[in-house]
């Protein structure tokens, strides 16, 4: 790949990150001049307590000094302390990170594969029953709000049929290890994962179908057919590789939303991930945790965006070699 292309993209990503870092700081300062007043409004605090809280948040300092401190601490990996639990924000985030990566990562990967395959087949059999039913299915699932679908599935499969637990990461007080722990967690994850997968499929299906339809009328498919290739070979070797290009960006981009993408669904299924952590922090409100989460969410989108650009550059020779 062209080194200048890579350098340009990486520089752009670093610049965006720096902007987000600054923006994130000022966003939470705009809310109110004094977070201590704002957070503890209406509660009786002694002047000493206020002073100590202001000391802890560095509120008394001039804004510029606060900003320098914030940047320095963030770069050192220190995201401050949670107001609610007094634990370091980074610990709160790390605890919730893996459940979210598991759940949303699985759902994203599944929906990507299923949606893309559905889109390929629908477009290749355009106008048939296969096409119209796949398209209808995608439109319906795509337009359903995820919190609504989560509640419907919860009511049907967890409460009425009792096939799945109603929520949580594993059985309460579970001491299982190894395979049985994994199976227990998978059992808990099934419903939220199905909810998210259904919600995500439509986007991939609809985009892949449209992209395939653009490709189907290309002259090089006619040439591939004229060469004597089978229909499936024409599709697999010539149509799909070209039609996939626009999807690569979308997919890589969507991996950036893995961390932040399931706030409602995690809250409904009591899944102890970043979404629920966000939900809890909003209830507080626990601004240091929110600030840390926002920074993480933005960073993951920016990094995913960078990867999308680089991947697209690698896959499309027209981008890679120009």
């Amino acid at each position: 790949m062209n080194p200048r292309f890579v350098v340009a993209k990486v520089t752009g990503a670093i610049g965006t990150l720096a902007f987000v870092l600054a923006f994130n700081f000022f966003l939470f300062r705009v809310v109110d001049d004094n977070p201590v007043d704002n957070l503890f409004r209406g509660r009786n605090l002694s002047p000493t307590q206020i002073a100590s809280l202001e000391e802890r948040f560095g509120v008394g300092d001039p804004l510029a000094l606060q900003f320098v401190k914030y940047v320095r601490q963030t770069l050192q990996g220190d995201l401050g302390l949670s107001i609610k639990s007094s634990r370091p924000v980074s610990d709160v985030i790390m605890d919730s990170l893996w459940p979210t990566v598991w759940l949303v990562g699985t759902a994203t990967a599944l929906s990507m594969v299923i949606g893309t395959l559905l889109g390929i087949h629908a477009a290749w059999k355009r106008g048939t029953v296969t096409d119209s039913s796949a398209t209808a299915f995608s439109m319906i699932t795509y337009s359903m709000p995820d919190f609504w679908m989560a509640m419907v599935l919860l009511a049907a499969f967890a409460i009425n049929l009792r096939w799945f637990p109603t929520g949580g990461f594993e059985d309460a007080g579970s001491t299982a290890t190894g395979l049985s722990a994994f199976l227990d967690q998978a059992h808990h994850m099934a419903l939220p994962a199905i909810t998210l997968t259904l919600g995500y499929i439509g986007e991939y299906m609809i985009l892949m179908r449209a992209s395939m339809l653009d490709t189907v009328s290309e002259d090089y498919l006619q040439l591939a057919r004229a060469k004597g290739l089978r229909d499936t070979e024409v599709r697999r070797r010539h149509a799909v590789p070209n039609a996939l290009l626009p999807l690569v960006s979308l997919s890589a981009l969507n991996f950036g939303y893995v961390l932040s993408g399931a706030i409602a669904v995690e809250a409904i299924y009591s899944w102890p991930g970043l979404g629920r952590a966000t939900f809890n922090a909003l209830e507080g409100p626990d601004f240091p945790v929110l600030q840390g989460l926002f920074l993480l969410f933005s960073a993951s989108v920016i990094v995913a965006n960078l990867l999308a650009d680089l991947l697209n550059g690698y896959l499309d020779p027209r981008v890679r070699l120009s």
Partner: protein
Amino acid sequence: MTEAVLELRDLHVTYRAAGVDVPAVRGVDLTIGPRDTLGLAGESGCGKSTIAGAVLRLLPRATRVEGEILLEGQDVLKLRPGKVRAVRWTTAAIVFQGALHSLNPVQRVGDQIAEAIETHARTRSRRTTTARVGELLERVGLPARRRREYPHQLSGGQRQRVLIALALACEPALLIADEPTTALDVMVQAQVLSVLEDLQRDAGLALLFITHDLSVLRSSCRRLAVMYAGRIVEEGPSGAVFDEPRHPYARALASAFPTIGDPASRYRPSGLAGDPPDPTALPTGCPFHPRCPVVVDDVCPSLDVRLRPAGPAREAACVHVGGDDDG
């Protein structure tokens, strides 16, 4: 008598678009012998490219194709799908027009040529295929190493030559060149034409050359057929057809090109009034009569003239041709 490489017998092709039948080819007979060259000319929409698609059965599924298409004696319209695939590219190959769009943009050009070879000869080893790809590229005047490049790295003329090399991959008996020079500038067009002519001569291919540019056909084809509204309206030796066209449409097509060395023809290119006919609502009688400069008012609108003899090895479909005034 040697068997014809391609013989069309009363070929009819009817597209179906939005529930309406669109007759694109309406009874065409053509014969191309081994090593023979035939030029097929006509304006856009006259059905000439449809014939190319019909020969390899590449037309949309809803299209009705009737008559006979004999490729080396076997009727491709009666073949099973598997046999059709086997015939494609081995018996007849097409040099497509779109130098820009006919190659897959994300595959190396060498791989696209190799794919054709491997599809029809699965026993070949990778190495002999690669060597063969290099050889094919060199035959069209490109260095073998360029097989590693992607279409966008080649110029229009180079891409067109890749398409020619690709068409030769399985040593077909018949090459159908469908407007192979249309998108190219004149100098490159001349290069591509000479490559095509050399190959035709050296490899002993039969060539069906489709274009709207009659002047290109004069030098590269032995015989010439002019199509109008889905039918051949004139056929004969290319020099004779080009220099002394008998059908008024062929005459208009031939005089649309300025004669080199004759400034008068450059400043007064004689075009043809009117638009090509709508295939879903063809004029009655001779389909050309609304645009014809020599229309006979009480005959042409009602008489659908078929091809009739018009001189040595020539035929034309016009009331003015044949009988005593044929000379």
